[in-house]
């Protein structure tokens, strides 16, 4: 009597299996296609676009001390920085001949200019501090553990982007402090083995801090990095819900 053998997996099956049935893929895409009524209802009930606030939360999440709202406050700082940054862009030209004078102009002539610049500066400081505190909270409450490991990685990318935003904004006033801070900062990057000098050249657009560096830092500061940060933030927020809401004590 012949016993029916299961079909041997083909090469295509093996590749499919390697690509989609692994730890990394499953940490990013939790569920497969919603092919049962229960899964279809879950998709609607947990959809972040349909329900900005979760339909139900654990009682430990009601207390503000659970998260101290640090992530939300970081996002608020980002929004404030966007608004004040756009207003500052109206008056600032990233040219070595004009940058310094434009900032002085903002401080002295522009209506509410000084307030806008100071807001931008203090909110930038606050954002770095809040993002760091947020990371500490996530770490000490163990909220980075599975199933939230993918969101932790997104968070680390956001932390680096926040630092880069802060760093690129530092050059823009084009005064002594800015010039030397960026000289030192890029020299540190340049001291890395093998790729160091190339990285320094790539950052500065030349061998020393000059017009090319200013326009490079400006472009990264006002469009490149904020756009990247906004995309990663969208993934970060959406991901909280996908991973089952805030972490809670077991």
């Amino acid at each position: 009597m012949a016993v029916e053998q299961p079909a041997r997996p083909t090469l295509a099956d093996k590749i499919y299996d390697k690509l989609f049935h692994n730890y990394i893929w499953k940490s990013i895409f939790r569920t497969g296609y919603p092919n049962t009524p229960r899964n279809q209802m879950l998709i609607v009930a947990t959809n972040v676009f349909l329900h900005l606030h979760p339909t139900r939360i654990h009682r430990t999440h009601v207390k503000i001390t659970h998260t101290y709202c640090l992530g939300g406050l970081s996002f608020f700082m980002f929004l404030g920085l966007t608004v004040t940054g756009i207003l500052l862009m109206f008056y600032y030209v990233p040219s070595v001949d004009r940058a310094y004078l434009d900032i002085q102009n903002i401080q002295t002539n522009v209506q509410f200019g000084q307030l806008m610049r100071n807001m931008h500066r203090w909110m930038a400081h606050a954002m770095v501090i809040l993002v760091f505190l947020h990371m500490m909270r996530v770490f000490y409450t163990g909220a980075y553990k599975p199933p939230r490991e993918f969101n932790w990685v997104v968070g680390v990318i956001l932390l680096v982007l926040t630092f880069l935003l802060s760093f690129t904004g530092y050059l823009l006033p084009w005064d002594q402090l800015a010039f030397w801070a960026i000289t030192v900062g890029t020299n540190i990057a340049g001291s890395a083995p093998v790729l160091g000098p190339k990285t320094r050249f790539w950052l500065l657009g030349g061998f020393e801090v000059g017009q090319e560096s200013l326009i490079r830092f400006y472009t990264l500061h006002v469009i490149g990095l904020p756009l990247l940060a906004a995309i990663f933030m969208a993934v970060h927020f959406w991901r909280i819900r996908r991973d089952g809401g805030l972490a809670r004590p077991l």
Partner: protein
Amino acid sequence: MEFSNLPHDYAETLELVFVFVTIFLSLGLMVAFGRWWQQ
């Protein structure tokens, strides 16, 4: 580079007061809007 440092310490107390009042005011407005939105 011959430009001297722009003021970075903002020692003027009034300036700081304005900055922080504006930051907290806008935060308050956002929170108030959020509460209204959730009703």
